[in-house]
């Protein structure tokens, strides 16, 4: 597999959210606006690239039996880095995302990539994989956040384009489920056409 293919698979063919259904909790929880989705996506990308990098570096020294706890410690360390730096430099975003920042540690996407990819490939491939999967995840979150923000509050990235409120339901919990459901339908249609 070329590096380019390795990078782009995270966007369409193996998109974490739309195809693999991984990392759904933050996907639904923080996407009431496009900007929140982007913040969450980039934070996850940072953790994913970092953990893929470290796991790939130490893959020959990890005993097979304790590999999962080792991965979890590596991931948790990067999550703590994100948590503390976001609290210091982006306090507003930190308050918006709240509980979902420490919960990056249990995002199955990250552990899944460490186990299925980074622990079996060399450093360069692992970083490219982390970057591709992470940005694919970010793309999904921004798309979902954008759709919900447009429908729900009539704005995009905080810029309002209608007077008054939108369909409030879409910023609330039920809207997250419904919007994601119909987006997966759409992706299924597109994927089938291209296949």
């Amino acid at each position, binding site marked *: 597999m070329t590096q380019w293919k390795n990078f782009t698979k995270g966007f369409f063919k193996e998109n974490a959210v739309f195809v693999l*259904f*991984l990392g*759904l*909790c*933050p996907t*639904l*929880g923080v996407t009431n606006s496009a900007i929140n989705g982007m913040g969450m996506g980039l934070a996850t990308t940072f953790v994913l690239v970092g953990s893929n990098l470290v796991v790939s570096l130490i893959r020959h020294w990890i005993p097979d039996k304790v590999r*999962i*706890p080792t991965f*979890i*410690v590596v991931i*948790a*360390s990067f*999550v*703590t880095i994100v*948590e*503390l730096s976001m609290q210091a430099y982006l306090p507003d975003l930190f308050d918006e995302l709240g*509980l979902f920042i*420490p*919960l990056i*540690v*249990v*995002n*199955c996407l990250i*552990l899944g990539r460490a186990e299925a990819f980074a622990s079996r490939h060399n450093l360069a491939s692992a970083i490219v994989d982390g970057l591709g999967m992470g940005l694919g995840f970010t793309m999904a979150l921004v798309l979902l956040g954008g759709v919900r923000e447009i429908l729900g509050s009539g704005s995009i990235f905080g810029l309002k384009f209608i007077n008054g409120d939108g369909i409030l*339901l879409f910023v*609330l*919990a*039920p*809207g*997250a*489920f*419904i919007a*994601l*459901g*119909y987006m*997966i*339908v759409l992706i*299924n*249609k597109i994927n*089938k056409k291209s296949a």
Partner: protein
Amino acid sequence: MEYIIIIISAVFVNNIVLAKFLGICPFIGVSNKVETAIGMTGAVTFVMVIATIVTYLIQHYVLEKFGIGFLQTIMFILVIASLVQMVEIVLKRVSIALYQALGIFLPLITTNCAVLGVAILAVQNDYNLLESVVFSAANALGFGLALVTFSGIREQLDLLDLPKAMEGVPIAFVVAGLLAMAFMGFAGIV
């Protein structure tokens, strides 16, 4: 009285799955049959209550005492991961029947964000030990309520004639949305 408020709030008003979006993976993943949904609920309840007690003790007697609160995420997830392993080993020894019922679900729980989420929320809400136990049990109950209701609906969904692209997960999400809407009716009770 305040315990009743905690319970009603956690089960109905701020339902952990449908309002707080925690534990979505098992909610979508193991909700095909009512039977497996009940098994998963049992395993989650068990681990969630124990994990909340242990993380409460760690938060107050280790992290705060030594001023290392920034290690919270690392400590909590390690404790939960090893706890799940321990529960698995103990169950195997003590009760084979229970182990066979819950066994396959236990490894999945480590990455169930509901467990870590509830442990962190209990600390953030400044609950004392008893309140934390009630809070975690009520959240597990809310998880079970959502999961079992949803799996009952999904068993019926299988019989529907749907467009190909909507089958399986997409329709499940749309139905979950409707269920979340129903739960929004509880808003304002507490």
